[in-house]
């Protein structure tokens, strides 16, 4: 408890510094997640349209990407892109892509073929089928992917500190280096809360955006 109190005091004494670190952490996470979603969801749509060997290769690549440890991704990025915010953002985006891609692809593929057949038979264009039928039905699964990615990115952003990306990870690395437990907690506790918060936020969004007809009773 004393350690938590010390950590709290540290934040109160260095509000601007803490706010900046937290701000960097959040913006790294939000940017990485947004870019990853903007790339992975259209890619998933394209893969379902394309099908065959290409789709299989894409999903397998994403599955391999999923198994890479976050630290390894950052370590691999550093020699190529150097240090700072941009390389960290790049690495985190890479980290967020696989779960979003895999879930979006799976969600779209799971839409009942008879539902799509009847939509086509009634005269919907491919674009209308995607917007009005496939995406809304796949939405819960797509959001589950975003949720996984969000939690991964928020916790993964801690590692940005290793390549000078800033964020709350700075406190953790400094805390470890200086054997200062309270400094470590200044980073660790807010990151944990952010991570739980991101999970809860996406869970709520998922529930809210799931069409009524698809909700479990």
């Amino acid at each position, binding site marked *: 408890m004393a350690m938590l109190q010390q950590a709290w005091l540290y934040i109160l004494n260095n509000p601007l510094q803490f706010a900046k670190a937290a701000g960097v952490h959040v913006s790294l996470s939000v940017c990485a997640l947004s870019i990853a979603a903007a790339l992975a969801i259209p890619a998933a749509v394209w893969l379902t349209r394309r099908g065959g060997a290409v789709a299989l290769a894409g999903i397998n690549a994403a599955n391999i990407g999923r198994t890479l440890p976050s630290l390894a991704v950052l370590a691999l990025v550093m020699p190529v892109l150097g240090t700072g915010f941009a390389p960290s953002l790049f690495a985190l985006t890479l980290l967020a892509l696989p779960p979003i891609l895999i879930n979006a692809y799976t969600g779209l593929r799971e839409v009942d073929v008879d*539902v799509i057949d*009847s*939509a086509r*038979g*009634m*005269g*919907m264009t491919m674009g209308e089928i995607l917007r009005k*039928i496939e995406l809304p*039905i796949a939405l819960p699964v797509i959001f589950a992917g975003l949720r996984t990615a969000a939690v991964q990115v928020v916790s993964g952003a801690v590692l940005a500190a290793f390549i000078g990306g800033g964020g709350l990870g700075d406190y953790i690395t400094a805390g470890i280096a200086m054997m200062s437990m309270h400094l470590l907690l200044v980073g660790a506790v807010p990151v944990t809360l952010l991570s739980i918060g991101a999970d809860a936020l996406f869970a709520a969004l998922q529930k809210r955006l799931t*069409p009524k007809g698809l909700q479990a009773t």
Partner: protein
Amino acid sequence: MIKLDALTKRFGRTAAVDALTIDIPEGDICVLIGPSGCGKTTTMRMINRMIEPDAGRIEVGGRDVTHIDAVELRRSVGYVIQQVGLFPHMSIAENVATVPRLLGWDTARIEGRIDELLELVGLDPAQFRTRYPRELSGGQKQRVGVARALAADPPVMLMDEPFGAIDPITRAKLQDEFLSILRRLRKTIVFVTHDIDEAIKMGNRIAILRSGRLVQYDTPEAILARPADGFVEEFVGADRALKRLSLLMVADHLDDEPVSPSAAKLSTHASLHHALSLLLTSGADHAAVVDDAGAVRGRVTLERIKAAATAH
């Protein structure tokens, strides 16, 4: 209304549909039937261009459908499939409103049409409008499926085994109801089934297909009386004489001989199949035929039934 002219579709080397020519007059219910793989579903799906033909012509309402936009064509043709394919994330009202919305109808007109259609297919709008597909039974889902297909009042409807996934009791009820609705609305219908009894019940005309070729195209009565070949004869079943009797009405086969007072009574709306069954159970040689008012219109005899069954 629908003209198929030398229609051909190949999948690889085999012809799924082979130079098929069929003319379906307006208001007819044409049943496409045959064993699986005979090309009946492929034929139906070429009419709204869900499958593109390799050769031949398709005319719907005088228009060559290969020369019009496929999306526009499909919006003007009702489409019902066995699995129904209701949109699970939309309410029943939204499902029914699909095509009118695509066509850009105004809201008031769409809302009115939803109620009208749900009533038509026997679902209370107040109760069903806001429900979702997963809350419905199989029979109710297909009622919605048909309402949805009828929404923009298309002159032509394509129905692919619409009652195939429904239990026998509900199926018979739906067949009766939809037959009367579709006849009343004078829709031209292409109906695919593999069930000969359903074909006889639903069709004005039956097209029997085998390996993508048309074997016989005629009224149910004519097909049962004069099967074109051994294949058709076997396909319609050994009890074809009895099936045929179920299509013939006692009112058309009366004689004027005096009726014995002990004779069993039959309605003028009964079929000869029903009459035969009654005579066999009562052991009599004739039954009295009475109209709705209860007046005796004549009698139906075993002789007459036999003559009708063998008449060619």
